[in-house]
């Protein structure tokens, strides 16, 4: 019987712990410096935001957990999460927070940071692209709908050129690669 097998000991937990030294302690400051995030560190994790959220039951990371993750420095996980993009921006969490943490606005900050790093879900990106290209989000494609209402097929006087021009110069234009 050989006892030479190297034993590394039993695992501490079945799931490997998150190594705090690999996280980004500056992330908290980074978010803190963004618009409406001054009260970020006031969070004491009461979970009021999660209780208020109409969609969090669909989420893997609940709103209070996302705030926790920001405070701990879990930059990658937060910025690549689907949750920040699925936020309905109903502002219920922000309205109810007992410590005046602007939760919804902080998720906006996260989305802006994520977008700057090119982490945008494809459906959101597609929306942005269509906005830049067509100057509007909802295009009237079925002209029979208008005909049924006794309207002429084309929307009279609709011109999106100016708005397209303006949008190209915005962050949205830049992020979706709206080169001329």
């Amino acid at each position, binding site marked *: 019987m050989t006892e030479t097998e190297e034993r590394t000991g039993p695992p*501490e*937990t079945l*799931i*490997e*712990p*998150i*190594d*705090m*030294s690999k996280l980004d*302690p500056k992330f*908290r400051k980074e978010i803190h410096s963004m618009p409406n995030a001054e009260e970020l*560190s*006031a*969070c*004491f*994790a009461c*979970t009021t935001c999660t209780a208020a959220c109409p969609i969090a039951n669909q989420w893997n990371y609940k709103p*209070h*957990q996302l705030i*926790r*993750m920001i*405070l*701990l420095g879990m930059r990658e996980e937060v910025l690549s999460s689907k949750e920040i993009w699925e936020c309905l921006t109903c502002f219920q969490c922000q309205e109810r927070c007992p*410590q005046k943490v602007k939760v919804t606005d902080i998720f906006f900050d996260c989305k802006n940071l994520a977008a700057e790093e090119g982490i945008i879900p494809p459906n959101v990106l597609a929306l942005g692209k269509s906005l830049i290209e067509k100057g509007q989000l909802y295009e009237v494609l079925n002209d029979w709908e208008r005909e049924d209402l006794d309207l002429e097929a084309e929307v009279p006087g609709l011109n999106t050129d100016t708005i397209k021009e303006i949008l190209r110069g915005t962050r949205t234009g830049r992020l979706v690669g709206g080169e001329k």
Partner: protein
Amino acid sequence: MSDPVLVIGAGVAGMTAAVELADNGVQVVLVDRKSTIGGNALNLYKAFPTDDCFYCFEGNRWRPGIRKCFYRSAMIDQPNIELMTNTIIQDISGTPSKFTVKLVIGPQYVDPKKCIMCGLCVEVSEAFALESPQCQPQAVTYDPSKLDEGAKKAEQDCPTKAISLDANPSEKTITVSDIVLATGYHEMQPVAVDEYGYGVLQNVITQLELARILDPNGPLGGRLVRPSDGREAKRIMMIQCVGSRDENYYPFCSKICCVFALKHANIIANERADGRVSVVYMDIRTYDRHERYYREAREAGVEFVRGRISRVVSTEDDTLEITVYDSLLDKYLRFSIDLLVLSSALEPPEGLDEIIKTLGLKTASGYVGPADAASEDEVVVGEHVYACGGVLGPAEIPESVNQARAVVSKILQGRK
């Protein structure tokens, strides 16, 4: 003339009761088993809620002539107070308003009336120590278990002949009218809570030990260092409710440890360069107005992790690898930490149960309970027996002072 009042314990509560009784013309015998008065508060560094250093606690600056350190200097100067340090209660008998108390006074190795705190003995012998420059009585202390050659030399060379190494204990029996219990609390030494490694790993300490490290008057001059190697400690973790709210140790909430811990976390985060603090907690109970400590801590960047420590492992260079379960995230986190500080339960002091038994008092979780739980006189614990401060359960300083004054008022009313 009436018999004196006996005050047991010369901490915040006992000193307040003694000095206010004395100021009202009542004779007081103030007894403490230690050789320096001040109790736990002496080791707190900054005391909440005012963040004053206790040495300069100015709660009673109205007292003419003495502003700072007033209680402790009054203990010596007020003629109505007979201060007996190094003294324990051997026995209490008699009847209420006529108690007979047998005191055992430890050997007086250093006569505080003669000691001029020149420091000669401290230099030549390990057995002598100066607790602090502001200690009361103003004298060095002697530990007979550390007797060495230098001690004998110190005895001979002492310029005021204040040292007597072959001093003997003595006994004294007094008659007192009332007894005030002010024996305070004791911080549990959490050796039994073995998952944290206290008593095994040098870099695992308690909050009171941390207060000593942070105190500029303390042995390390206020440098935040690891006990194992004296290297600067930058990453600190605190764990709350060690032995408190735990049916295996003490079922009650020790009440002041949350604020205690936050006070230290704020000092480290705001006053020590690169100090990073994480607090692992089940609930943060900053009762009353102390909530501000919690908010300040969060603003200062103190990291709060709700959960418990899974395990603590010391690496070769004495760094602690700590795994924490974060119950809010439902994830396990691994930290590398220099110093783990346990917010240990505050327990009744040794010997209190005997006093409770002798006097036939009621108990509340090991502490002294009020005689009539339904009444609002929580300081009245028996016939002519009163209690104030930590002896009624963990208490902050203003609370102890208030209770002491309530006791004084009760005694004065009884004597009218």
